[in-house]
């Protein structure tokens, strides 16, 4: 368990639910796998690439679009068969399909903001559905924190290396023995 954690965002998809927390030395990603949680860290000192992009999410749009179409189709069919008097039934059907219709329209209008943080060994991603301003803030905040952490680390390493620099002792070589005269061929 880590202390001083601050939730900065979540990333939910069809298959996984993740929460990204900021901890003093990096980002902690908690992946929910049914009733187990896997925790991984992307350390600030390892981050080398941070991206921010917007996307529709084709799978999500297709799924919500098809569900919306299904309910709208049934509502239209009810009005088509029963006439305009059946508008209450059509409204009820549209009401049931409203979450899917709203999700489809909201995604189409606002798209999905994704921030991806690439570390040397792992990556983290945070998704923002509606809060665009917050997404930009988090992107700027992560970049500033990483820059700060890496500058501090570079200074610390420099100081450490300066403190540990080996002192090279240049010792004088001992004098060479006097050259012996070459012996001539023995008589």
């Amino acid at each position, binding site marked *: 368990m880590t202390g001083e*954690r601050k939730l900065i965002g979540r990333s939910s998809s069809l298959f996984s639910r993740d929460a990204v927390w900021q901890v003093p030395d990096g980002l902690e990603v908690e*992946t*929910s796998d049914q009733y*187990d*949680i896997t925790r991984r860290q992307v350390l600030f000192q390892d981050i080398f*690439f941070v991206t921010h992009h917007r996307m529709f999410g084709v799978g999500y749009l297709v799924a919500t679009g098809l569900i919306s179409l299904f309910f709208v189709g049934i509502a239209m069919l009810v009005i088509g068969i029963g006439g305009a008097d059946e508008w209450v039934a059509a409204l009820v059907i549209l009401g049931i399909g409203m979450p899917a219709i709203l999700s489809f329209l909201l995604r189409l209008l606002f798209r999905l903001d994704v921030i991806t943080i690439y570390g040397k060994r792992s990556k*983290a991603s945070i998704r923002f559905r509606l809060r665009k301003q917050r997404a930009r803030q988090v*992107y700027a905040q992560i970049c500033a924190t990483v820059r700060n952490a890496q500058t501090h680390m570079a200074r610390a390493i420099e100081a450490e290396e300066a403190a540990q620099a080996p002192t090279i002792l240049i010792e004088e070589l001992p004098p060479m023995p006097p050259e012996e005269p070459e012996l001539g061929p023995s008589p």
Partner: protein
Amino acid sequence: MTAAATITGPQCPHCDIPLTQDWIRTGTIVCPYCSRGFDATVFHPVERKQRVIEVATAGPEGANQCANHVRNAAVTSCQRCGLLICSLCEMNLGEGSLCPSCFDRVRAEGTLRTAVTRYRDYTALGRLTLIAGIVFTFFFLSIPLGAMAMYYGRKGALQRRAEGSSAFGPYTIVVLGLLEIFGGLAFIGFIIWSVTQAGK
């Protein structure tokens, strides 16, 4: 999409195709493969150089050689098996130095607290048992499942407190679990009362 996964290098966040060095820069980048744009910031993390002392240069006091690297001087010994290890082999997560083999073992056992990355989500378990108790009330299961929800809720609250989060959710589960037990008892009482009334 997985939020934390092993990666091989910087990728396009749209298509996940690895980007070559020419495309890694700060600013707006258009992916050469999918032609979609994204904002990016590049950082240059500093590498911490590992200082390894060779036995030949270690001097008389550091002349013990590492058990895994014969040319390296040992800087410490493993606190679990006592093996002499060099700075390359030393694994220290704030709970003492371990050699790589012992580190793997204690990590697999789950006894090294700081190396545990997978744990049980008791709050989610409490929520599940609470809902199951409501669903299976008519099978007289709300009493044991309510008790389980209280147990998991309590453990979830302790877990949340340990990590500095709010324990409101787990405590709500504890209270609802208690209500579920009372509800289950009331249901059993009602059944007994109904049976006795029908017998009269």
